[in-house]
């Protein structure tokens, strides 16, 4: 159980500033996911928390204690590595018992704890096998067991599921969520997979180039992305962006691009006024589910606006159909109901959910 604070943490490799002034506070029992594209520095942050990488500047506190100079072995942190890093010359039992042996816990107690953990993870039958004889999924489980058996203050996960195949990944994801619930432990999890990040976390930290782009609850980030990067990175398929001219028309504001016209009430979007006055563009962000096919009235949604698009191609996924359409010369992905009949080349009348629209400044990338 631990509270973790990162205060202005920075990391410089040579001339390369990888992490700049990283601030984060993780509450006791929280599941925080650090997500970002590869090379954004998220693993480096994790390794600094673990103590495997020294800080160039800043401070890390665990339970109020400054740990900058505490070696990894004394931090009481368990880490699950991307390639699992099991001890290949040891059996599953010995792998799980290792940390307990290092702490000079007596043998019967070690055996008891290892067996108990193995049972919760379904590893009992594998305890005697050499760890290098295991499949990827089994190794992953053992790595997890090795972390859990210690009952550490803090769990760190460095992309633990990325080496597993898709089915196994879903299983392990569910298992991790269940584990977090039952252990009520503080967990920090690094991934580049935004679906994983969304589905597992209490809180999400979106990182780009070593800088925090946004911190928040998953739905908060999904619904109110702070900037273009977060908007484009979180959500699959990604958000559609249309950069438009902003024109004032009496009480209304019109967003235009070629023959695409979107009319908004100036009162609902006060920020747009100054863009119209200064003749600046904005970027509209629309998620694939922010459209309704016209003619399929949806009584629960009001404030809709109709546009026409041409379907380019479709991807039927069973549970839904993704249709890529042409709108003002830009490809747009929209989500359709699985039973909807649509063919490439077909014209489609769509209603845009005006309340779902996100607007961004093209220069700063920030949300309006």
């Amino acid at each position: 159980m631990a509270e973790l604070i990162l205060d202005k943490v920075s990391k410089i490799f040579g001339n390369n500033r990888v992490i700049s002034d990283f601030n984060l506070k993780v509450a006791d029992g929280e599941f925080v996911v650090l997500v970002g594209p590869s090379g954004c520095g998220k693993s480096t942050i994790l390794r600094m928390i673990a103590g495997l990488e020294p800080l160039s500047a800043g401070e890390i506190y665990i339970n109020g204690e400054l740990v900058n100079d505490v070696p990894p072995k004394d931090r009481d942190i368990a880490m699950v590595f991307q390639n699992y890093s099991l001890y290949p010359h040891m059996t599953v039992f010995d792998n799980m018992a290792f940390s307990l042996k290092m702490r000079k816990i007596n043998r019967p107690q070690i055996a008891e704890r290892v067996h108990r953990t193995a049972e919760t993870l379904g590893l009992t039958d594998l305890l005697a096998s050499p760890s290098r004889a295991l499949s990827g999924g089994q190794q992953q489980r053992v790595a997890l067991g090795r972390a859990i058996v210690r009952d550490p203050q803090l769990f760190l996960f460095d992309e633990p599921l990325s080496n597993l195949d898709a089915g196994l990944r879903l299983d392990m994801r569910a298992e991790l969520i269940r584990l977090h619930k039952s252990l009520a432990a503080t967990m920090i999890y690094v991934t580049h997979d935004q679906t994983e990040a969304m589905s597992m976390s209490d809180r999400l930290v979106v990182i780009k180039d070593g800088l925090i782009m946004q911190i928040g609850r998953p739905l908060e980030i999904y619904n109110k992305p702070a900037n273009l990067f977060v908007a484009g990175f979180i959500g699959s398929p990604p958000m559609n962006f249309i950069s438009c001219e902003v024109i004032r028309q009496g009480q209304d504001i019109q967003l235009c691009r070629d023959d695409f016209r979107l009319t908004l009430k100036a009162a609902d979007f006060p920020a747009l006024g100054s863009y119209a006055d200064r003749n600046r563009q904005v970027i509209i962000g629309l998620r694939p589910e922010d459209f309704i096919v016209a003619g399929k009235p949806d009584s629960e949604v009001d404030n809709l606006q109709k546009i026409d698009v041409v379907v380019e191609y479709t991807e039927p996924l069973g549970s839904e159909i993704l249709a890529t359409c042409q709108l003002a010369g830009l490809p747009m992905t929209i989500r359709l109901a699985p039973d909807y009949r649509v063919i490439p080349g077909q014209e489609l009348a769509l209603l845009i959910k005006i309340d779902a629209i996100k607007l961004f400044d093209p220069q700063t990338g920030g949300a309006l």
Partner: protein
Amino acid sequence: MKSSRAKSFGGNEKRLEQLTAWLMAGPAIFGLLVFIGLPFCLAVIFSLTTLKLDSPLPVEFCGFEQFYRVFADQGFRQALVNNTIFAAVIVPLQTTAALALALLLNRPLRGMIIFRTIFFMPVIFPMALIAIVFELIFAPGPNGLLNSFLLFLSNGYWQPLDFLHNPHTALAAIITLSIWQGVGFQMIIMLAGLQAIPAALYEAAAMDGADRWQRFVHITLPQMRNTIIFVALVTTILAFRLFDQVWILTQGGPNRATTTVMFETVRAIFKRQDVARGAAMSVLFFMIVLTVTILQRWLAKEKREID
């Protein structure tokens, strides 16, 4: 692609491939047969005869007579004892030293390549050169390098020794110089082994609460197991082949204190022209090395990793 073609053309293609393989391997096989196979067979045959180059007597088949004589020979027995002592001291000492050096030289330090080169250099020096250097170090009298150093350390109380010609110190002197000369080779192999250990294992162990020493015991040693076995094996074989140092520095003396199986063998053949006796010795030498090797492999077999 190859195999499917072989099928469609029937056996012809396959036979052609086999022929090519034999042609390619031919020169090497020829060399092995002529320079290793044939001499070994000849040695076995000679060892069962009375062949002596300068003898006027006709060569006769004499069964295992040569082997009995060799075993009865004080010099050969002493050589066996010396070789055993030499191996028993050198294998653990040199293997440990090589591992220690490799650990020291496996740090990411500026100029490490220079240190590695320095420690490896004795391996490429010819033994004759090393022998001369050590002859100076071990020189008798108070002016010998080692003697004067010991005199300095003991504040004048040290009694200068003639290390190479004192029966109590001669073998130790040979052992010292052999370790100095050979350790670099084992060190390089150990270094390669160390570098093959994934860094993540050390990180995982550190996270699991292992300190430096525990990481060495629980990660480095088990991961180095095969390398250490290999090094020990090679060192054992090399130890039984001990010859150059002895030939140059002590000629087996004083009083057979440094004689070795190889030394006795060479002396029997080239000094006394007693080919049959030398052949018997080399056959025995071969048997000894083979036995030690099999024994070591068998002892190290359990848990052996095959990858």
